[in-house]
Structures are given as structure tokens and as C-alpha cells.
């Protein structure tokens, strides 16, 4: 099977490539040529009409909920959602039940992913057994089974010594550790950002300092070990600054931000909208500006969807009792390209933080890039397409997002994973 992408703007900022008017030929699951003639023989021709052809997007953090919570999401629906959002690789968090601390769970996820199609699902192993924060999970076994990252997902590591051992052990295995940085004593009882909105609503707050104390601790332990640390979903100005300083000192740290923390503030919670209840919580305008700046200047390496499906039953309730989180795989690219349209981010940086940069966090050079002979993981992006977020049309099993009804600019028109089309937009834009 040959597919020709005709007249595309070949765009791989990680490789310094920006080639308008190019033609790309895919043969089976591989890229045959990045500079094919326009009349190359092919069974299928996709007219690019100047759209961007980029490496398939790479997501460092999504919750696929299978095994365990298939009422929220399954690997199949999660992968469908990823494909619609332009992703060809996703890292699945161990927020499964059972968690990913045993090889059998890794195998289950790999089997489900293979059934679901060509999208790469890379399991993240639990850092500690049962994500209990007490004993290390069997990292060597898990790595050999296919885990690409170790993390207790949305639980901070309670014991600094355990974090040290995790970083050292994973470091020897050449696998990064990702932490959710939080001082749980400071955040205890909180359900939203502590500030002028929480005081107005009478909701208990989570101060920005709860995250900053966590980030400072995690950075100090990582620098002690010299091993690689990745900090998940950074949300405060203070945390960005701590990471900036650590990088200046030469610390081996990377960090990511979620799309919702790039575009929404605590004000989204006014009216007690449980869709806007996130973890970490939405912060202030100053924090949003700081994470956008941090993403632009390289302090924050990548954007990760932090796709967190929740059922209607879990969301449609009292704000303090509603489950935090939002589905994001299908809005991440739109949010990031909307920042480009608003000139807060360059197009090069926007694509980089969703492709080569997250691949680099994982230490992989086989994804997030376009190479002849490499896997045909591609996304055709219309950066100018204007669209409205309609959760009912999502591929995800869940619809929980505070962006319902939001106007976005920029969208994946076609996604191809390992040579197979995993998503193609209809002419009506659905």
C-alpha cells in the first residue's frame, strides 16, 4: 500500500525542517520518501493543500483507565480519542486497577492496544508497589516488559528516601521517573486553587506553595542522585521558576504542562462547575502567563494532555465531592495552536513540544520525528481550521471538559500511525 501526501508543508521543527510544497510517500508502515515527485505512483493520494505534515504527536501523560475503570475509558476508546487529537503515541498512566506494577498488567494493556489499532500505547510503570509509596516496584521486570517511564501518576512520593532509591534504580535502567509534586499537608482538604475565587466560593484551597514545596523537594533529591527526573503537570509560576533555576544549575530535569493549565484560570470554577475541577487545580492568570512563558523559553519541555476521563455520575455532583480531571486528548493540539494564533508561542515551538520534545523526555529517537525508512507516524494539521469543542462528538468514552463550547484554532485533519490511517476528518469537520 502506497499513500502520497501531495503538496504539504513538511514541518518537523525538531529536525529544523520546514518545507512547503513537498510530497511525501508512505509505503506500508514506513516513510518511503520525504521528497517524492508529485506524480509518484500511489494507491491513495491525500491532497495536503498546504496543510502541515508533522510527526505524529506524542503524549507523555494520559489515563486510559483499563484495566479497572472501563466505565470511564478503555484502551480502545482512549486510542480513538488520541487519534482524533493527532497523537500516534501515548504514555498510559498506571492509574489502572490493578496498577501497572506487574508484568501481567503490562501485557494486558499491550494486548488491548494491539486490538485497538496502530496507535502506540506505551505503559508507564508504577514507581512503587501498588502506588503505595512504600516499596519500589520491580522496575527491571517492568522495563523489560515495555514500561517507558516510572511514576505513581497522581500521587506524590511521600518518602524522600524512596524517591531517591527510585531515581537511582530507574537511572541505572535508563528509564526516567516522573513525579506529581505536591506537599499533601499543605493541600489537605483543598478542592481548588487557594485564592480570590476559593474565598468567594467558600471552597477549601490548595495553595500554589503546595506544588512548589513538592517541586523543590523532588528537584533536590534528583540533584542528589544525578538521575533524570520529569515533573508532571506544572501549574504555578513558582514551580516554573524553581525548574528554570535547576536547569540553569545543570540539573537533569524535564517538565511538562497540561493544555488546560495553559489556557484556563481559577475563574473557570466560579459557578461551581465540576468540569473545571482539575488536579492540580486551575491557577491564577499570573500562573497561566508563567507556564506559557516557561513553555516558550524551554523551561517546560513538553505539553502532555493529562487526559483524565470521568463519568457523568462522578462529575455531576457537589463540587467538593466531584472527581477532578478532564479529557484532553482531543483538545490539546487545538489549545496549543490557539496559543500560536494569539502569538504567545511560535508554530515551531508548538509542534516541537508535542513531538520531538516529549520523545526526548522518554529518551526515544524512533518517535516524534520524520525520517525516511522510519515508521509512518504522521499528522496532517490545518493550523487555521476554526472549530468548536463538542464533547459529545469525542472518541473518548467520557465527555468531561471545561472547554465544551470553546472556539479553537488548529486541528488534526488526518492521523496516520505506522502507515495506517487512525483518524480522518469528514468534510463537515466532524
Amino acid at each position, binding site marked *: 500500500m502506497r499513500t502520497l501526501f501531495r503538496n504539504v508543508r513538511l514541518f518537523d521543527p525538531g529536525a529544523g525542517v520546514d518545507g512547503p510544497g513537498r510530497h511525501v510517500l508512505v509505503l506500508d508502515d514506513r516513510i518511503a520518501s520525504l521528497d517524492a515527485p508529485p506524480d509518484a505512483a500511489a494507491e491513495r493520494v491525500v491532497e495536503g493543500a498546504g496543510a502541515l505534515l508533522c510527526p505524529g504527536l506524542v503524549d507523555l501523560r494520559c489515563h486510559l483507565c483499563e484495566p479497572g475503570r472501563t466505565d470511564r475509558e478503555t484502551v480502545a476508546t482512549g486510542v480513538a480519542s488520541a487519534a482524533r487529537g493527532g497523537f500516534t503515541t501515548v504514555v498510559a498512566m498506571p492509574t489502572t486497577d490493578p496498577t501497572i506494577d506487574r508484568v501481567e498488567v503490562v501485557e494486558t494493556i499491550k494486548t488491548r492496544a494491539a486490538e485497538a489499532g496502530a496507535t502506540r500505547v506505551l505503559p508507564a510503570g508504577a514507581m512503587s508497589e501498588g502506588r503505595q509509596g512504600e516499596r519500589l516496584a520491580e522496575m527491571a521486570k517492568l522495563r523489560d516488559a515495555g514500561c517507558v517511564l516510572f511514576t505513581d501518576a497522581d500521587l506524590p512520593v511521600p518518602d524522600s528516601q524512596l524517591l531517591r532509591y527510585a531515581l537511582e534504580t530507574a537511572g541505572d535502567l535508563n528509564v526516567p521517573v516522573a513525579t506529581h509534586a505536591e506537599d499533601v*499537608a499543605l493541600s*489537605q*482538604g483543598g478542592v481548588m486553587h*487557594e*485564592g*480570590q475565587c*476559593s*474565598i*468567594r*466560593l*467558600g*471552597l*477549601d484551597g490548595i495553595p500554589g506553595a503546595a506544588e512548589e514545596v513538592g517541586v523543590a523537594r523532588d528537584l533536590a533529591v534528583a540533584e542528589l542522585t544525578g538521575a533524570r527526573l520529569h515533573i508532571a503537570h506544572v501549574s504555578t509560576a513558582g514551580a516554573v521558576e524553581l525548574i528554570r533555576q535547576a536547569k540553569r544549575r545543570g540539573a537533569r530535569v524535564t517538565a511538562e504542562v497540561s493544555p488546560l493549565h495553559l489556557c484556563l484560570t481559577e475563574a473557570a470554577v466560579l*459557578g*461551581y462547575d465540576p468540569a473545571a475541577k482539575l488536579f492540580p487545580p486551575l491557577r491564577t492568570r499570573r500562573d497561566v502567563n508563567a507556564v506559557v512563558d516557561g513553555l516558550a523559553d524551554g523551561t517546560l519541555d513538553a505539553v502532555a494532555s493529562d487526559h483524565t476521563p470521568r463519568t*457523568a*455520575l462522578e462529575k*455531576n*455532583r*457537589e*463540587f*467538593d*465531592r466531584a472527581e477532578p480531571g478532564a479529557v484532553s486528548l482531543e483538545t490539546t493540539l487545538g489549545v496549543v495552536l490557539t496559543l500560536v494564533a494569539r502569538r504567545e508561542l511560535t508554530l515551531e515551538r508548538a509542534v516541537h513540544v508535542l513531538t520531538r520534545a516529549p520523545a526526548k523526555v522518554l529518551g526515544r529517537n524512533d518517535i516524534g520525528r520524520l525520517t525516511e525508512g522510519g515508521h509512518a507516524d504522521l499528522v496532517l494539521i490545518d493550523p487555521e481550521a476554526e472549530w468548536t469543542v463538542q464533547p459529545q462528538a469525542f472518541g473518548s468514552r467520557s465527555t468531561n471538559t471545561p472547554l465544551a463550547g470553546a472556539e479553537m484554532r488548529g486541528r488534526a485533519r488526518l492521523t496516520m500511525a505506522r502507515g495506517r490511517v487512525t483518524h480522518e476528518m469528514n468534510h463537515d469537520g466532524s
Partner: protein
Amino acid sequence: MVSLAMPAAVGGGRHPRLAAASRHLLGIEQLDPVEIRRLLDRARQIRNQLGEHARSLSRLSVVTLFYEASTRTRASFELAAQKLGASIVTVASSSSSVTKGESLWDTGRTLAAMEPAVIVCRHPSAGATDLLARAVESVGPSAVVNAGDGAHEHPTQALLDALTLTDRLDSLEGRTVAIIGDIAHSRVARSNLFLLRKLGARVLLGGPRSLVPAWLETLGGEIGRDVDTLIAEADAVMMLRVQFERLSGPPPFPSLGDYTRTYGLTVERAARMKPHAFVMHPGPMNRGIEIAPEVADGPTSVVAHQVRNGIAARMAVLERSVGAGPWAS
């Protein structure tokens, strides 16, 4: 979303006199000063004619739905409804479907389908009555009245407090009210702050820094760290209890004795009040902690008067909810 089957006949002919006029009271924040004055005027009017006012809620029903223990607020609402001629249905969370795990959303829709005129709700979660109002609106015309939602608002308490304040001070314009205690967790403080600011009063806030966060200034309060100064400046002093049940983690101050020493309205402190100033407390009171028993029961205390005013204030609110009395079109 759960859908609740409803025969068309029921949906068709509901409460013609409620359809347009019914309205929720979810918080003081959404009320404008004109509406607040109207409620206070009506409460005064009702109080002056107690026993002879029209039974303006006759043949209507009021449901009280309380998810939290309450003595005075529930009794006050039920007496108010009774005096207006309404029939009252009491739903206590301990003896209802709530213990079977029914969600607030479903409970709201179920109750709304029975078409009571008013649902009065107290709930431990901030924003719960907003959620209940949305659930109710999806089914029928009942009005939702907030009887306290978590640490958010307690609008009828603020109305009865305003009634009490204006009984003594005439206008609130330019007056100074000090609220002292656990402001962060107090729905009474929040509703009073909104109301007093809307009617032109200065509001001084005092208490431990952890319970009186600086963010309160964004709501129009002025924070003073020295309680003695606040008390000397105020025309009325409102004392609040520490809501231990809403605290997580270690206690935010060393001991109750220490608390009383720094923030309590002791006899000595009360002596520093202006000569005409008076003391309020929404209850429940922790005597000997935030307020000395001698002060609570002394000549400057208007606590019993507050409770009496509660019934008239709630009668006015119920009338507004169903579009009766001055709200009848």
C-alpha cells in the same frame, strides 16, 4: 444524565401562579441592594403585623431538605412557612434516600417532580444549592432557598442580621460592623460581608490569620489583625465560632485558651466597645471561647433578637420565592 419520566399532563398544568414569579434565593451575592431593601422592608412589615398578615402561602407546600444538623434555622424556616399557611414536608438526610446513596441531583429532580412551591436546603458542600437549583429547574418550577451551603452562603442569616442591625442603627450606610472569628469557613460571614457592603457599611474582619485570609479583602472586607482596635471602632460586633468540623490538619492556633486570649470577646474587651455598640452571634455559640457568657447574656447582646427576626426575614424570603405579598404581580 438521568432522565426522569414525567407524564405530559403533569408537566402541562403546573402552578400557574408560580410559573413566572418563582425564584431561587441561592446567595446574597446575586441580589442587588434594591431587592435586599425590599426583603428587609417586607420583613419589618410582617413583624409589625404578626398574627394578622395574609396567609400568603396557603395551599402551597414547602419542603425542608437538610443534609446537615440544624436547630434554629430549620425550626425558623418551618415556623415561617407555617405562619404563612404553607404545608411543610421535612426531609432529613438520615431518614431518606440519601442514606441509600441517591445523588443530590436525583433527589432534586425527584422532589421537583412533586412540585412543591419551595425547597429549602441546607448542605455541607459549598455550591450544593446551585446544583440543586439546576436539577430542580430541569424538572419543574419550584424555587430553591439556600439555608446554608458549606462555607459559602447563608443568605437568610444575613437578612435577619441586617434586620437586627437596622433595628438599632436605622441605616447601614457608613456604619461599621466588625466580624471576628473563623471567617474563612463561615457562610454567615460571607453572606453578611456581601450584604453589608451592598448596603454601604464598612466591614472589619478579625481573627487568626489562618482563618481570616488576606483574600477576603477582594470581597470588600477590611482585615485588622488587632481585635481590640476593631472592637473599639465598630457599631456592632459579630462573633463567630471556630468551625472545627471544617478544619483539616493540625489546629491553626495553639489552644482554645490562647484563642480566647487573642480573639475572644471577653468582658474586658467588651468594655472597649463604643457606648451604643452591641454584640451579635449567629449561633451555635461556644461560650467561654469566642464569647464570654457574661457578654452573651449581657445588656449589649442582641442574640435573642436575632433569632426572633429570623422568622420574619424567612417569611419575606418565602413570599418572594413564590411571588406572593409585595412580589405578587
